[in-house]
């Protein structure tokens, strides 16, 4: 078995025993190590802090002077969250349903239309294709938060304020998925393959479903991850929703958390609960995401 090591052991020794890559001094290596260590500590601090806080019993949360670590870990904060959730005015299951319903439907529909559009913009030869593709790429600049207000008037005009439609439809306009799928199709589906299928008499739709879709699986998975992530993380920030019955899980969890100082333990438990789904999804699909992102470059 290979020994675990911090550095990549042999760098770029292309068919030769000699490493041709320039190497760094010992001090340089130590500097890089220290830099990464500090960065990781800073990046992980809130996450670690919230996990520790969520496991503290009430007397440890209010301990003075405070202690960073937890002595007697307990799940009572999580139990408290469940108790508070059960006593809500709108049944807890409603929020859960809203979250699942909106996230799943939007992600599924977006995946389909983005795959179709990405393929079309990569391989089509119709007039205006390049202009549309450029426009989609350019709108990567405008995140949903920024267009939400200008879209407010449109959403209102369509009578969608305070309905499920306002949560389901606007995310379908996202450009990141279409952009990544288009890039991937361009790189990984050669024109010759499509041409051969056409000569064999396959229709464009058949080519799309039998050749293109199987050929870009990592990009599709990545689109699912990113859509899921942004839906989950933006839940509750919508300006189009006022009714309690239309709100989603993260919103109600933060409402529970906002109950003042006595809820600090519950608040930490909530943030731990909310961060679990995106983390699991990302860890499972990490290698597909990295593969797709290698096509993300733009000219």
């Amino acid at each position, binding site marked *: 078995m290979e020994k675990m090591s911090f550095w990549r052991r042999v760098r770029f020794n292309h068919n030769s025993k000699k490493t041709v890559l320039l190497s760094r001094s010992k001090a340089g290596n130590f500097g890089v190590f220290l830099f990464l260590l500090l960065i990781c500590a800073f990046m992980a601090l809130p996450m670690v802090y*919230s996990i520790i806080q969520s496991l503290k019993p009430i007397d440890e949360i209010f301990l003075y002077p405070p202690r960073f670590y937890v002595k007697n870990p307990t799940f009572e904060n999580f139990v408290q969250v469940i108790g508070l959730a059960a006593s809500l005015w709108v049944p807890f299951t409603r929020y859960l349903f809203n979250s699942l319903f909106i996230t799943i439907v939007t992600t599924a529909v977006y995946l389909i239309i983005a795959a179709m559009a990405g393929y079309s913009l990569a391989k089509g030869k119709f007039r205006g294709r390049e202009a549309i593709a450029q426009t989609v790429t350019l709108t990567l600049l405008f995140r949903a938060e920024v267009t939400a207000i200008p879209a407010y*008037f449109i959403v209102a005009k369509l009578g969608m304020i305070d309905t499920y439609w306002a949560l389901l439809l606007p995310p*379908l306009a996202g450009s990141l998925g279409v952009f990544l799928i288009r890039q991937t199709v361009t790189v990984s589906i050669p024109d010759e393959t499509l041409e051969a299928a056409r000569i064999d008499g396959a229709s464009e739709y058949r080519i799309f479903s039998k050749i293109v879709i199987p050929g870009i699986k990592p990009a599709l998975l990545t689109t699912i991850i990113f859509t899921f992530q942004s839906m989950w993380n933006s839940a509750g920030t919508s300006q189009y929703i006022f009714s309690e019955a239309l709100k989603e899980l993260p919103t109600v969890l933060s409402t529970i958390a906002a109950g003042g100082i006595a809820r600090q333990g519950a608040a930490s438990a909530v943030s731990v609960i909310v961060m679990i789904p995106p983390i699991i999804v990302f860890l499972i699909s990490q290698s597909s995401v990295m593969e797709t992102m290698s096509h993300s470059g733009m000219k």
Partner: protein
Amino acid sequence: MSKENTAIKKRRPLTNQRPFLVLLAPYLLFFFVFTILPVLSSIVLSFTDFNMVTINNFVGFDNYIRLFLEDDIFTIALKNTLIYALVSGPVGFILSFVIAWFINELSRAVRTVVTFIVYSPALTGNVFVIWTYIFSSDSRGFANDFLMKLGIVSDPIEWLSNTDYSFGIVMLVIIWMSFGTGFLSFCAGFKSLDRTYFEAAAIDGLKNRWQELYYVTFPQMGPQLLFGAVMSISSAFAVGNVNQVLTGNPSTNYSTHTILLHMTDYATVRFEMGYASAIAVVLFGMMLLFYVVVHKVLSKFSD
């Protein structure tokens, strides 16, 4: 050139383009209605006094004049947004690149862990709320406790309401969250660099790793760098959510107020859509301007 040759050789009629249009249509519809139309209509509405209730009148440049000459809070928001964007954008971009560069030399397992840790704030979205506990104003807050134990301060600091500190803390949290899709793109880009260039350059006599970075890595990473820059601009100018959660809306003396918050305020609280549209147009314009500049600078590198 070879493309033309094969086209002449085959002399096949161009494939039917209708299926491509059919495949594109559903997305294009949503893209038009929820992205293009809002942008275009905000340009039109910015010249009116539209408020969603009365009939709107054309008011020329009144909204813009009011915005830049009379609205002092907008001036604060504009200044804050520019500072946030011009600091957090480049810092996030450069750090993303440096971290991706360094971790590319680590063993696979370590690389995966570090990538996950660095990407986790962007991944988990709402976890930044925890910073409010770290910077809570009493002596139980993590930051206050730490500084008091070290004897640097004697009394707890009101981090989030004291205007001396709140701006910097929001900046810190925004930078903390700025390792998103662009960072992943850099990591993937480093992984797929062409090794032969490095070997050729090493044989040609590169002196050190900085030269290697400048002459070999940058030109190959050009497309990824541009993607990363676009993602940086898109998040750096959209600051607002973090500010609102950490320091409230409005914050003390509007110390962390931003264009996005100003726009949301006028659109959803006061329903002055014409005025909010003018704010949106300014924001879009700034982002496009920065995109053009960054594009110019980066294409010099990769060509």
